[in-house]
């Protein structure tokens, strides 16, 4: 077990270092100059040069990489070129929206998907299964910004139950803030739930064909107990893998939903930073996300061992 853990950590560390180099290099070749972008079309070349110097953009490449990477080690993520505040402050503000949103969406998606998957798998080929999987197919196919707009028209414009968008901040109270996250969470959760339900169903069907399921049934266990205790537990590995991927996606890949609901989330911060060539923000946020994805993968890897004792003893 210890060797397994050590190996996992070593791989995670190597991935981080490699990612930092790739991220830095890619953003270096990206055309566009943050100083020119700030000063616009009427500024002279001399002025742009002056601002480049003030921003520290004219220092040698290697020096800038080491300076930035060194900062990361001491958890100093640098200062935003455009906002001129520490990147970490920006990220903290955005996480206050993105993290709860991702967690709510993930919880919703799990709560919907697992029962639907169980239901479908146990009624394979029958009417209920067809309807459920048809709905799931629709959930995957419908573009989520369109679904989001429909939710807005029904619940914000017509029923006026929740705001059409925006985020008042947690300072405005838990209820107003949570209310503004409801529709985005549903809009995010549904397509994810559809995918997860399909994965759960196919994983379960595979397991239900195994000999030990027949044995369990033969020794007289009720179907329900077999399904929950034997089948679901063994079908968990692909489900957990997908959940891990979904969490990483929900944390930063939700730019479209953030735009439709004009939420100040992490995805929009990165997008805005890219368009403004606020390279230091892009680099640092991407690194944080890389770290988050690696951490999630690590947790998923470890949870395999929890659900499947065989993986533990093999190490």
């Amino acid at each position: 077990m210890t060797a397994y853990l050590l190996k996992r950590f070593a791989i995670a560390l190597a991935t981080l270092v490699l990612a930092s180099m790739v991220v830095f290099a890619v953003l270096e070749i990206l055309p566009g100059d943050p100083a020119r972008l700030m000063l616009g079309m009427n500024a002279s070349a001399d002025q742009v040069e002056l601002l480049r110097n003030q921003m520290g953009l004219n220092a040698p490449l290697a020096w800038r990489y080491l300076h930035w990477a060194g900062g990361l080690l001491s958890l100093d993520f640098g200062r935003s070129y455009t906002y001129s505040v520490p990147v970490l402050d920006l990220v903290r503000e955005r996480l206050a929206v993105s993290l709860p949103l991702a967690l709510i969406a993930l919880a919703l998606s799990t709560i919907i998907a697992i029962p639907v998957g169980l239901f479908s798998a146990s009624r394979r080929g029958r009417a209920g299964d067809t309807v459920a999987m048809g709905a799931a197919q629709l959930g995957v196919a419908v573009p989520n910004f369109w679904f989001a707009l429909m939710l807005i028209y029904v619940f914000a414009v017509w029923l006026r139950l929740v705001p059409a968008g925006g985020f008042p901040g947690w300072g405005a109270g838990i209820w107003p803030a949570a209310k503004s996250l409801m529709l985005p969470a549903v809009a995010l959760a549904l397509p994810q739930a559809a995918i997860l339900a399909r994965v759960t169903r196919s994983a379960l069907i595979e397991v239900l064909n195994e000999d030990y399921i027949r044995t369990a049934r033969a020794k007289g266990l009720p179907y329900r107990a077999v399904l929950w205790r034997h089948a679901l537990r063994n079908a968990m590995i692909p489900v957990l893998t997908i959940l891990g991927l979904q969490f990483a996606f929900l944390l930063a890949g939700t730019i479209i939903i953030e735009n439709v609901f004009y939420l100040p989330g992490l995805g929009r911060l990165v997008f805005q930073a890219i368009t403004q060539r606020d390279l230091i923000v892009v680099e640092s946020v991407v690194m944080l996300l890389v770290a988050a994805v690696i951490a999630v993968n690590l947790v998923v890897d470890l949870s395999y061992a929890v659900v499947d004792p065989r993986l533990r003893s093999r190490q």
Partner: protein
Amino acid sequence: MRLWKTILAAAVLALATGSPTFAARTDLVIGIPLEPPHLDPTAGAAAAIDEVLYANVFEGLTRIGQNGEVLPDLAESWTISDDGKTYTFKLHSGVKFHDGADFSADDVKFSLDRARADNSVNAQKALFAEIDKVEIVDPATVKVTLKNPQGSFLYNMGWGDAVIVSPKSADTNKEKPVGTGPFKFQSWSKGSSITLVKSDHYWGTPASLDKVEFRIVPDAAAYVPALLSGDIQAFPFFDPESLAQVKDDPRFKVVIGSTEGETILSINNKKPPFDKLQVRQAISYALDRKAIIDGASAGLGLPIGSHMSPANKDYVDLTGRYPHDIAKAKELLKEAGLENGFKATLKLPPPGYARLGGEIIASELRDVGINLEIIPVEWAQWLDQVFTKKDYDLTIVSHTEPNDIDIYSRKDYYFNYDNPTFDRVIADLNLTSDEAKRKELLAQAQKILADDAVVGFLYELPKVGVWDAKLQGLWENAPIQANDLTKVKWGE
């Protein structure tokens, strides 16, 4: 089943009681598409900075009114010497900055000297280039001496980049702007909104609104639901494509005004074959402005024939110079030895007018034998490749700065246009303050640009505003990109 219904009803009630009712409103939520990178108008070109702060938080010696006129602001009056080189400004007294500091001639000198200093990063530093010295006569009087007479000086001092700041707060304005205006800055929740509140010690007519929130709404698809739900009450810069959904709704006012945005098909004048006059003229003949306005701007926006807004008092109508004439265009290409047509690229920045207009222009030019390859680019890329490195054939962009016909005389500008006659007209114009003479020179300048077919002149970008029908006093036109809220109030 009963239980379910009860739970559902309770939930609906709980959710519904959140929305407050309003009596006489003094608050306003305005939707803006882009977030300002920071809040200092003297240190950045982003229009979003002025859209929040101009006239509301910061004031200049003069200011621009909603029809582009120059109005007194912190300077209550001024005199101009006979040689046109010395401006003496009489300042309002009793003016305070929002942090309590007194406003005086010192602040004017500080602000102007700061903007034109060697290490200045003012995005419009050229506005101050003619200033020779700024002298304090007494605390309420400032004398500005110019190197040469400059006809546009008072206008220039009305730009957002020329607002007066206090030496105490100049360095922190990016995060916490401190000005002299009727509103003071309250908070900025990054990525979400910027809030201003009424200033208690304003020197002029106080604002009617107590609180204004600028909410950042990046996606045009969200504009309509935000208006319909009442979350946001005004979009001064609305998306023309979404107008159909609100234009017949009596709850909203749709206001179409003018801007200073000349939307043009820029041409790289030094790159063959565009260095040939016939080729550029052929392009002008090939363009069907009406089709472009219909397709790229929902039929809104006035056609232009040179680089001047039709709303400008010095505008000359040159739209008849190159009527849409495919035969003529082909003939000109033949004269240029290109009867078999040629290939070129068209780089398009992100705005809708460029992306939609580009498709139409590409098809129009194909009709005369010019095959365009469309290359979509981001703004940062556009500024780098097209504007700075001049690595382009054709591009579409709206030049939104007011009175900017002089860009065609700038050395090394991205048009790569070089005409000594035009440069002389602009040089004369800069030295002329007599209105009649200026009008004549500006007419000449417009005509030269049209004759040379320097670029393909398309149309003037419209300002499409949509707001609550009860809201009064928002700007109809956008002579500069600003949301002046000083006269805005809620009616019955």
